[in-house]
């Protein structure tokens, strides 16, 4: 059986599942995360200017992006006997009900240390218009050869 780490190449892509964002999905995330910030629930609160930002309506939790990226990475890593070890993200644009978003990743680098082998991945989440919603970097650990 081929070694999953050895067969990986810089530039290899990973594609996650599309996620349809709705008021119901946002409410489900509130209940799942216990994050009931009115940013995600209160149309009246979100209608006007919000500090230095105007959203014009309720927005999805940024951490939903984090959860979707994690799902993509763990499904990929588990299949290869690897461990998802780190994820760093920045939110670039708000997501609203009616949007459809999808995480993707690309192998950025491979490195071997004394005890393990590592893959660094560039991560991006985009919406149905091709706009970048979130960016980040992840680290996956493979066992030594």
């Amino acid at each position: 059986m081929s070694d999953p780490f050895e067969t990986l190449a810089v530039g290899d892509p990973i594609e996650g599942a599309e996620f349809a964002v709705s008021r119901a999905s946002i409410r489900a995330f509130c209940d799942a995360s216990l994050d009931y910030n009115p940013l995600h629930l209160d149309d009246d609160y979100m209608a006007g200017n919000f500090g230095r930002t105007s959203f014009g309506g309720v927005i999805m939790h940024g951490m939903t992006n984090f959860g979707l990226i994690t799902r993509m990475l763990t499904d990929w890593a588990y299949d290869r006997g690897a461990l998802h070890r780190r994820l760093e993200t920045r939110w670039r644009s708000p997501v609203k009900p009616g949007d459809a978003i999808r995480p993707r990743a690309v192998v950025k680098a491979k490195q071997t240390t004394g005890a393990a082998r590592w893959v660094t991945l560039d991560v991006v989440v985009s919406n149905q218009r091709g706009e970048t919603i979130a960016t980040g970097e992840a680290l996956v650990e493979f066992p030594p050869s």
Partner: protein
Amino acid sequence: MSEAFETDFWKDAAQRKSWDAIIPGEARPTLPYRLTLSAIQRYCQAVGETHPLYFDEDYARKSRYGGLIAPPSIHILLMFACTPADDWMRSPGTINAGQSWSYNQPARPGDDIRLEARALDKFIRKERLFVVHDNVFFNRRDEVICSGRGWTIRPA
């Protein structure tokens, strides 16, 4: 347990620290939390997680983990579960700008979770008030589950 959780973030809002009052380096009070299988699976369903490590006991028992686990991103739930109602993390209008997390041990159903947390830094950028918070979650054996930082924009 979510039934006992205060879902009205406006309640106690006046008691929460403003950006001015947050002291970098100061610990945040936290609450212990018992992670249940139903809470894990509710979180999984909200983000479309279907892996059998989170749902299928037979599959999980035969895996490297020896039993059901939570996905690494379960800290999204743990953060609010371990945060008291009067904490500034729950201030209405708090905007999450980004996070970074490192993972050690998986959290498991039945784990008694402990959070050590603090404000780490605060600054102003493009007229927005930022606070950086750092966090470490432990299980009952004091093993690190995960550690991470978050960048939030505080309400004006």
